[in-house]
């Protein structure tokens, strides 16, 4: 139906400046407004109204913004309306400041604020230190006003994450001209901009420019001098003497974040059963590596398991990440042992260690090492003895793997074992203590 109206417009409106065209425009605007009054979530009506504005030389954007304002008053979570508002602002070059003010007013007035907080998160990128402090203050206020409002806590998590390094793991082989960057959010190599080593621009040939990725690999003409600094995408990365790899998972723990922790702990005293307080403190630790003596994380995790049993598997995973974090600590070695940590899953910060060459994960409870597969391009030696792996086929995604041990797991396919034995890349492969049966053996 909307398409018929569009076709009619295209056929009948020859001169957009004419009086007749004006009548059509007013009519479509009125008609969509009527439809939206009774059906505020109609994809067709919103789309048609937007289409009509693009066909008109001088749309009244003030009126459109006012329409959005009224409709959001009725339903602050109407994402069609938010999307239309963003469209209006884009077309009319509305200022970020006015939009930030709009979301601030909405947050102050309403409690179902997720959409407003979300909009702020996109308006405020990138954010400077002053804005960061203001936002922390705004969201802390919201947390205290209504500690059960999950959208404020979600926004807090984002705010804290937003101060993390864009490049979390870095490897540079200056003698052979190789570079590896582990990025926090997927991006294309050509979005990085110029790369500087020791303050001189380096010409990098990236392996893949076409598609976004979480590990960017490239080559460059080798350099002789000692590598001290690497600057890329607005970040400066320092190297210690003789080193060529850095894990940048932790950010400096500033006074501002320290204050946030204090605020949450204060709130916790008023609301000892508040799930969000417990969860946020654990998040703060995992993101910023808080001094452990101040915070009893295991106790917090146990409380979460108690009052939110539906999500116990997620909290178990968090427990794994906490153990991983503690074990890795400040290690920046190319060789890492994570034996006997009762790990049943993997994640950050391990998955940022793009420079790892040897990894020992034996004596854990792993059924999969999936998270490692796309971020360990230099891993040569992997030990997975005494775990619960049922399948190892996926390990062939590791491009540098040459030594593998999977003794005492639960691999029951002789075909998989054979395929791995025949993989030319592997120079050493141990697999004893697995229940593997041949595919043509008779079932007993």
């Amino acid at each position, binding site marked *: 139906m*909307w*398409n018929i109206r*569009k076709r009619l417009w295209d056929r009948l409106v020859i001169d957009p400046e004419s009086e007749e065209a004006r009548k059509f425009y007013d009519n479509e605007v009125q008609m969509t407004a009527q439809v939206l009054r009774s059906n505020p979530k109609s*994809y067709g009506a919103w*789309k048609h109204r937007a*289409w009509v504005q693009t066909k008109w030389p001088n749309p009244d954007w003030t009126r459109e913004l006012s329409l959005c304002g009224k409709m959001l008053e009725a339903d602050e*979570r109407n*994402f069609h309306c*938010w*999307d239309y508002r*963003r469209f209006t602002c884009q077309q009319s070059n509305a200022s970020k400041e006015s939009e930030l003010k709009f979301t601030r007013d909405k947050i102050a007035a309403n*409690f*179902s604020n*997720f*959409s407003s907080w*979300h*909009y702020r*998160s*996109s308006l405020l990128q990138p954010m400077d230190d002053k804005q960061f402090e203001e936002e922390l203050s705004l969201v802390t206020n919201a947390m205290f006003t*209504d500690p*059960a*409002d*999950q*959208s404020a806590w*979600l926004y807090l*998590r*984002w705010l804290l*994450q*937003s101060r993390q390094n864009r490049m979390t793991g870095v490897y540079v082989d200056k003698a052979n001209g190789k570079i590896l960057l582990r990025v926090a*959010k*997927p*991006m*294309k190599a050509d979005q990085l901009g110029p790369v500087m080593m020791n303050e001189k621009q380096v010409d990098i040939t990236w392996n893949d420019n*076409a*598609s*976004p*990725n*979480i590990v960017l690999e490239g080559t460059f003409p080798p350099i002789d001098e000692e590598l001290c600094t690497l600057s890329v995408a607005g970040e400066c990365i320092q190297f210690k003497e003789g080193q060529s790899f850095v894990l940048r998972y932790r950010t400096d723990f500033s006074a501002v974040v320290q204050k946030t922790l204090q605020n949450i702990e204060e709130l916790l005293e008023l609301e000892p059963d508040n799930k969000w307080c417990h969860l946020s403190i654990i998040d703060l630790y995992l993101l910023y590596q808080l001094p452990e003596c101040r915070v009893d994380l295991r106790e917090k995790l146990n409380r979460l398991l108690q009052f939110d*049993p*539906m*999500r116990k*598997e*997620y909290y178990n*995973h968090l427990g794994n*990440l906490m153990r991983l974090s503690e074990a890795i600590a400040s290690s920046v070695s190319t060789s890492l042992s994570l034996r006997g940590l009762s790990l*049943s*899953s*993997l*994640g*950050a910060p391990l998955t940022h260690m793009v420079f790892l060459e040897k990894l020992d994960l034996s004596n854990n409870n792993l*059924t*999969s090492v*999936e*998270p490692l*597969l*796309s*971020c360990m391009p230099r891993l040569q030696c992997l030990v997975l003895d005494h775990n619960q792996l049922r399948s190892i086929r996926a390990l062939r995604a590791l491009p540098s793997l040459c030594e593998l041990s999977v003794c005492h797991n639960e691999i029951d396919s002789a075909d998989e074992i054979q395929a791995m034995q025949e993989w030319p890349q592997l120079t050493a492969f141990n697999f004893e203590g697995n229940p593997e049966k041949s595919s043509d053996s008779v079932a007993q």
Partner: protein
Amino acid sequence: MALHKDVIISKDAPKEFLLEKHVQFLTAYAAKGDEDYEFVITEYLRMNGIYWCLTALDLVGGLDHADKKGIVEFIKQCQYPTGGISCSQRCDPHLLHSLSAIQVLTLFDALGEIDVDGVASFVAGLQQEDGSFAGDEWGEIDTRFSFCAIACLSLINRLDVVNIDAAVDFIVRCMNFDGGFGRCPGSESHSGQIYCCLGTLAILGKLHLVDADALGWWLCERQLPSGGLNGRPEKLPDVCYSWWVLASLKIIGRLHWIDKDKLVRYILACQDDETGGIADRPGDMADPFHTLFGVAGLSLMGLLPNEIKAINPIFCMPENVMQRIRLQPKLLEIV
């Protein structure tokens, strides 16, 4: 006070899976004709409706009740010279309906009955420079349409006609601060959009780009005390999210992060024990859309494996069909 929207499940709510009743409900729905009011007013989603009914019927072993010949004929009449397929004979072609049509024909193993190259060319023509897809000639952009396009092309084995890198790039630009995805860059995360984006990335082998821990947490937070799932924070539960949230969790290997028993209880409570079929919430009217997604959710959780067929979490089609056409893209698996 923060709003905590949820429903209460009454103790009289159904607790067993009413398979026979659902077969009856779906068969009756599929048999409706021009004399029925409901048939007439739902013309704009006729093709989708057929897909919902038939897939649900197949999951519960009732596909034989369907009029295969009549439906295939109907689909043929809905294909335009441009190659696109519409929701019914009098409507315009659109990606949403083209996907449903291809899914139904795949179910019936009857893809050869239509001009498949035409469909490929219709879909290819809708890709924009930034990698996104418009739904039709009028240009509405939405990540749902990226999924429709990529799923459709992969079912007919014609992914060669579009720019895959650009398609992936657009999806990545729709990734939000919470790890979720919206309909366009800048839009709020929503479970339906998340499913579409994850499905697209899975088909194209790009799941490693997802922040699975962050997104998995956001998704498992959709579970409310009633056991039901909502689509985004502070919204009521709805059975269709038992599909979109659950399939998303399955794709990123974190299905175990929700409480299965409680969700099963919620879905069963949404059944209509008089007419058969499943509604969005306990006590509401049943419809094929919620019936499909409720049954699909139960299937993903492995309920009654001898009565409910396994479902593919990417395509929302029976797994045995995907095996037949050898199209089962890899999922993430941490467990």
